[in-house]
């Protein structure tokens, strides 16, 4: 690299060092200006050539921005700096490329969702409403989601919690290693496979009908590894001194775990469980296979088909007309709001009840 700034040492005194040690640099506002320029040029090209898709405009702008930055810096600041700027502009472009679809997703859902979202939508079912008619609502789906997710949590949370306790407080041998490994693997089980498992076991082999409970079992399978993993992390954060102090006072190990370890970590554990709930609340695939969907209110999760919010969205999308699309977007908004509130509350608890680390 011949243009290393320190490499070209001018004879002292001949020229002021500031001019020899420094290469010219682009002003600080240059990247912003280039970004604006390339966006403007891309819009010009897009309009001029009549490119219909905004994606093309964006791609042209991004390519222009990266190329312009590289070219200009290479001329003014030299090749090494140009590479540095190239990387910087690529990283910024990546960030924008990623943000655009995500913002669009949220914006579309809100804009199209608020159209039919009102009190009536939340408090009515689809009973007696044809899919092409406007009206109807999500009440039956909300009931279904709450019951299925509640049952799944009732199954998965204790099992997950106890497994995590086993791994952190007791587990040392091969069994613990196997459990750790398979919990990781279980995290990756696709939701549709969990659904197929419950289908083959509960519905085909044991010959039970479609019900909310069958769906809840599949959701529980998806929740367990998430609960185990997060609880494990939290239990590991509990300072060992607390356990030792309790054991030294003669408290049995199980009471130490129940009265000292778990209460210390309870905030984090609650967070983990709520994040797991948020994850499975949006699962559709097992519901399609196991709960079957319904237009009417069914309060009993152990008998007969139910609906659920994600399933409702799928069903309304499949109906394929304007009224049902409106309902699908509104239900999507309800679902996102539900999941996001769970997430925010969970993170709030985590911050509020974070275990204070020991001082040693």
């Amino acid at each position, binding site marked *: 690299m011949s243009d290393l700034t320190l490499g070209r040492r001018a004879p002292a005194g001949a020229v002021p060092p500031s001019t020899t040690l420094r290469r010219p640099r682009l002003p600080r506002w240059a990247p912003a200006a280039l970004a604006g320029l390339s966006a403007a040029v891309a819009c010009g090209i897009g309009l001029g050539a009549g490119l219909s898709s905004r994606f093309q405009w964006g791609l042209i702008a991004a390519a222009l921005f990266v190329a312009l930055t590289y070219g200009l810096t290479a001329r003014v600041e030299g090749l*090494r700096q140009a590479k540095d700027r190239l990387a910087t502009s690529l990283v910024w472009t990546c960030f924008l490329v990623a943000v655009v679809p995500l913002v669009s997703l949220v914006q579309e*859902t809100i804009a199209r969702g608020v159209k039919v979202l009102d009190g009536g939508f939340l408090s009515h079912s689809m009973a007696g409403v044809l899919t092409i008619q406007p009206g109807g609502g999500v009440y039956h789906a909300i009931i279904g989601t709450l019951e299925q997710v509640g049952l799944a949590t009732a199954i998965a949370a204790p099992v997950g919690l106890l497994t995590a*306790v*086993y791994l952190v407080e007791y587990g040392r041998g*091969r069994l613990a290693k196997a459990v750790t490994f398979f919990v990781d693997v279980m995290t990756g089980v696709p939701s*549709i496979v969990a659904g197929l498992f419950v289908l083959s076991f509960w519905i085909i082999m044991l010959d039970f009908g479609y019900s909310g409970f069958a769906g809840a079992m599949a959701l529980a399978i998806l929740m367990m590894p998430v609960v185990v993993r997060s609880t494990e992390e939290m239990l590991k954060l509990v300072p060992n001194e607390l356990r030792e102090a309790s054991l030294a006072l003669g408290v049995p190990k*199980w009471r130490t775990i129940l009265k000292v370890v778990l209460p210390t970590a309870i905030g984090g554990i609650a967070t983990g469980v709520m*994040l797991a709930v948020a994850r499975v609340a949006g699962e559709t*695939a097992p519901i399609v296979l196991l709960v079957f969907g319904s237009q009417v209110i069914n309060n009993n999760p152990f008998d007969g088909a139910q609906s659920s919010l994600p399933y409702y969205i799928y069903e309304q999308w499949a109906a394929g007309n304007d009224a049902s699309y409106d309902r699908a977007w509104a239900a999507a908004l309800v679902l996102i709001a539900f*999941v996001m509130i769970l997430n925010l509350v969970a993170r709030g608890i985590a911050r509020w009840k974070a275990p204070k680390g020991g001082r040693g």
Partner: protein
Amino acid sequence: MDEMDIPTSAASPGGPRAKAAARPGDRIFLGLSRGSGILLLVIMAAIAVFLTVRAAHALAQDHGNFLTTFEWNANTDPPVFGIAVLAFGTVVSSLLAMLLAVPVALGIALFISHYAPRKLAAPLSYVIDLLAAVPSIVYGLWGALFLVPHLGGLYAWLDEYLGWTGILAYHNGAPRSLFTIGILLAIMILPIVTSVSREVFRQVPKMHEEAALALGATRWEVVRMAVLPFGRSGVISASMLGLGRALGETMAVATVLSPSFLISTSLLDPGGGTFAQNIASSFKESGDTGKDALIASGLVLFVLTLLVNGAARMIIARRKEYTA
């Protein structure tokens, strides 16, 4: 202690564990918690066993070749079905998603860990975590009703300049194709790949970076020489976790793709299918044999994701040992 910690066996003398373990309450509690661990293993084993049993049923009745037949008529008599198209669609769309998502995710991860102004970095990583929680059906709805209508122009453009490759040829029709699925899956796996890589980049020893800076390296040179080599295995496993997600994604694919049992050379033309999508879309019209056939294809998907995720976890575990 290499042995399993059995409460009745005397542990190291004087250890609190040995004394406490003798109480009945302890035994019950240990039994419960170990039982839960075992229950998890049993569930995993049961998933494999039950799927295999039903799949064997299906295979016995299949009048086509399960691996190479290009049809899915599992409810006719005789049933003829094969997973060739599904396997192709699943692998191609997921790999495409990975190819599109990983560079962008790397960019965002670097942006958060090394480039962004600090005020932007913290809320941004928070937002990325929240986005991982958006349900897949909402992505599917957005993909079908927003993304698909906007991609036609782009595809016509790609066809004009790259159509000669055959892979990117586009004939008219709604772009409900494998390529669209790839884009949508890429958006969906972006958060997970980003957050795993970000964590790895954050662990890069500050000393390495400062040493590079002290030698006069530019920021990019620091990233290339200190950050990327350190984070390589983490990034590989992050992308494989993303791949595993993409392989098993159901609803987003089921809403966007217009399925057909043909393998088209062009990725932009509608058609094709994936394992998960086929299960969700054709489940309701399936009789007993049809369900068994779907379970058989689900077993293939299960094994596929197991392999990918297992490999990713192995890489992470190896790295942990190495850095610890």
